[in-house]
């Protein structure tokens, strides 16, 4: 048995006989279990909403479809039958939702899914006028944030690490056992290494247990995502051990260490992100979506003559030119669709510009992640959970493509005066979200490991340069 393992065993006995470890583990386990339960509750609610949306879609399309089989000789049926044949009705009453389903481990990090909508009803009208900017949410709840596994790992785990190791060296000094320790034939460096390694092992064990528990309780099966999640957690843990390692080499008293480490936690987890947010908000003007809506309103409430609208539409859709039968009523709805499409064509570039402006913000934040390990870890967790900004942009791009498909189904039928058939109702376009492989997490993990290496290395350097008096 080598020296190191004897040291670790002794330290293990010391730790497990004290009260502190039990308390800390209990607190972490309690918080972890609640976080898993909460994340799962939220995701279950999201799935239930999606199921009720599907039922609603089927019911609406079903009503229209069965109206086509009604016996039109009976009073009242003729009108229902006539309406169901109208592609405009199929659009307004048979519309479908584009759903952004939760990913395999969304419950681990709910990210922005409480703020932004995860489903969108799509009709052939203007998309810009349809998009819901946000989900209904309690602002105070949004302010506080979600108590999910990512929160436990990003906020609480570092505190757990700090509480376990802030008095690594100082406890010996204060108990007067340091001279005893130094009189042993083992170098103090080895003793410290053993103490740190044991604690690292303990924390990593707790992390693996938490993730394992979350996997079991949520029934997540995607091994690759879980492994990546674990990798991020390990890198973040190492980063914090780097911080602890550096601080204890300053050989302050337990109280000073606790103060400095808690200060580091405050600066890295709370203050820096909050300060950067304020500075960015000040220097990067928020995209003026309200101004755009106001412009859209100006255009949309001015109604050029119907024929003019339709003629403009034909310029972009020559294949439909002349397909109309000049039926007055039909012309009304044709003009409606034409007007809506003109609106989208006119303002989508501006919308793209505004979205770009928002993304610049995200790029700036990304360029600072090296300095903000907590934000870095949160972004990585969100990416894996499919709850980050990139995943939402993917979804919105797919919503836009679906809107085009839906329009291509409805509008030509309306223009040509082609009635909807039962087969048409069966073939209404459907939206399926195709998750795009998330961008790599290598760079983010690299930053965390670099931080861990630099801090830890500096600690070792300092320790070797100026050993204890």
């Amino acid at each position: 048995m080598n020296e190191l393992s004897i040291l670790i065993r002794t330290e293990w006995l010391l730790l497990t006989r004290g009260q502190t470890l039990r308390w800390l583990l209990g607190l972490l386990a309690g918080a972890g279990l609640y976080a898993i339960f909460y994340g799962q509750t939220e995701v279950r609610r999201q799935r239930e909403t999606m199921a009720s949306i599907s039922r609603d879609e089927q019911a609406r399309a079903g009503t229209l479809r069965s109206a086509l089989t009604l016996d039109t000789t009976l009073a009242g049926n003729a009108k229902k039958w006539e309406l169901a044949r109208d592609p405009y009705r199929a659009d307004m009453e048979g519309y479908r939702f584009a759903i952004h389903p939760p990913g395999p481990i969304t419950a681990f990090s709910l990210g922005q899914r409480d703020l932004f909508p995860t489903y969108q009803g799509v009709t052939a009208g203007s998309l810009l006028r349809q998009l819901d900017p946000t989900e209904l949410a309690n602002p105070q709840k949004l302010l506080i944030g979600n108590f999910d596994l990512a929160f436990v790992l990003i906020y609480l785990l570092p505190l757990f690490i700090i509480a376990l190791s802030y008095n690594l060296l100082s406890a010996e000094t204060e108990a007067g056992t340091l001279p005893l320790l130094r009189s042993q034939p083992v170098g103090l460096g080895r003793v410290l290494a053993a103490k740190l390694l044991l604690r690292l092992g303990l924390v990593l064990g707790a992390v693996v247990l938490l993730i394992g528990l979350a996997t079991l309780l949520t029934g997540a099966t995607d091994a690759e995502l879980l492994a990546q999640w674990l990798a991020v957690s390990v890198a973040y843990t190492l980063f914090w051990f780097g911080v602890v390692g550096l601080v204890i080499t300053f050989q302050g008293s337990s109280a000073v260490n606790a103060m400095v480490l808690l200060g580091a936690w405050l600066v890295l987890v709370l203050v820096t992100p909050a300060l950067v947010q304020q500075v960015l908000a000040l220097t990067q003007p928020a995209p003026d979506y309200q101004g755009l809506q106001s412009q859209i309103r100006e255009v949309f409430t001015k109604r050029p003559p119907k024929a003019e609208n339709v003629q403009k539409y034909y310029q972009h859709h020559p294949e439909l030119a002349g397909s109309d039968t000049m039926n007055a009523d039909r012309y009304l709805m044709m003009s409606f669709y034409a007007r809506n499409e003109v609106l989208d064509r006119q303002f989508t570039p501006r919308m793209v510009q505004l979205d770009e402006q928002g993304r610049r913000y995200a790029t700036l934040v990304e360029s600072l992640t090296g300095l903000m390990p907590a934000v870095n870890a949160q972004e990585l967790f969100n990416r894996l959970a499919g709850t980050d900004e990139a995943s939402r942009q993917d979804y919105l791009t797919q919503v836009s493509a679906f809107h085009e498909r839906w329009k291509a189904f409805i509008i030509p039928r309306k223009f040509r005066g082609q009635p909807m058939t039962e087969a048409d109702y069966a073939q209404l376009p459907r939206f399926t979200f195709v998750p795009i492989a998330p961008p790599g997490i290598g760079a983010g993990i690299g930053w965390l490991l670099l931080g861990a290496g630099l801090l830890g290395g500096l600690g070792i350097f300092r320790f070797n340069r100026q050993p204890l008096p």
Partner: protein
Amino acid sequence: MLSLIAHNERRSVVRDRRFRLLTALVWGLLLTACFVGFSRYQSLKAQREAATRDVRQQWLGQGPRNPHSAAHYGTYAFRPQSDLSFVEFGVDSFVGTTVYLEGHRQNEARYSTAQSAGTLIRFGELTAALVLQLLLPLLIIFLCFNSFTKELESNTLGLLLSQGASMRQLALGKAWGYGQVIALIALPAVLLTGGLLGLGSDAQLTTDTLLRAACLLLFFGLYYAGFLLVSVWVSARSRSSATALTVLLGFWLVTFILIPKATANLGATLYEAPTRFAFTKALHDDEKQGIDGHNPEDERVKALETKVLAQYGVDSLSQLPISFEGLSLQEGEKYTSMVYNRHFGALQTVFQRQNRVTDFAGLVSPYLAVRNLSMGLAGSDYRQAVAFQQQAEAYRFRMVEYLNNYLRYHAKPGDRKYKVAADFWQQIPDFHYQSATVGSVLGHYAPAIAALLLWAVLGLGLLYRLPEPGQTNPAPTPAV
């Protein structure tokens, strides 16, 4: 005796290099927070004032138009930034800044800061409130955790007590000394806030704003006093500095980080809010039960027509002295407004219930109590976001009602081309938001005020009942 102990304590703290460093840090943060908070407040305020002016110009410049078309065109209401919001952003960044006011429907406030700020905003925003509520208590802990244990550890406690001072006197004296130190640290924040307030509110400091600021000062005072007294008590009852510090930091962690997050999440689980899908569906289902003023074929419009014809004793709409269209549109508006108010009201109630859980958690976590009060007094809590939405809705209803009634009494029956003159639009006044009175804020947050009072009294009571070493020796240690 008391002031002697206080004086001694104050002097030893102020001489401490570590303490000076911490104070400099807190001051630096406060200064930064006030500066960025105030700059953002000013830029947001300027943006919204400009937008309000633009929108008013658009409204006035509509030109000749049918009054009901103007209801469809609508206008926008912007949520103004309250004078004190630069100290405490509250929920402001997560609430929409503008409501579109149009006929037939009530819209919710849209376009919040959070929407285009990415994940970063979920880490919070650095404001003076964050420093004062979250970080200053930590400073108090570091100031007080060894107030007694250091005497114990250097064997000076017995010496002090032998001078004739009682534990109570000693504890109160120390607390008094630390209180002076904390006041000294917080003073620049107060002066700075006062100065910026004077700058920010267009040189007209209203008594209302001053009253709010005074209340904030009082509540923060109670909050710090409680924290200080309890910290000194923990130190007096601990065997070692390490124990005292662990207990106090544990308390900070649980009541500042865990409880706020846990209770907000618990509230959301207990009182389930509808999703937008469920909300919209329920709303539209109810809306369909009402009169559709735009559809003459609507059965309810037909019924109204029969009723109105009978009332005026004529047999066709063209013989009516009023425009039936205006009448039926307003009937429809009344119904939809009722439906929207009911659904939005129910939703807001669910959210307020969720927040109530947090309000009561203030009894355990003084941080929550002071945070809720400070959001309320700064005018940036959820309640005032709702008040804005409700006032905007009341304005919208009056505006649409005026337009529909104008159509009813001025348009000739059946005249679908009716237009009002270009100068008509001034008849509708601009929207002005009336912020909640200090009294109503204090009334709503009575539990929080009670919690802060209790907290301070508890601290004082604990120190008063501090046993003399002779009575219970050795002092029992709180469990770690």
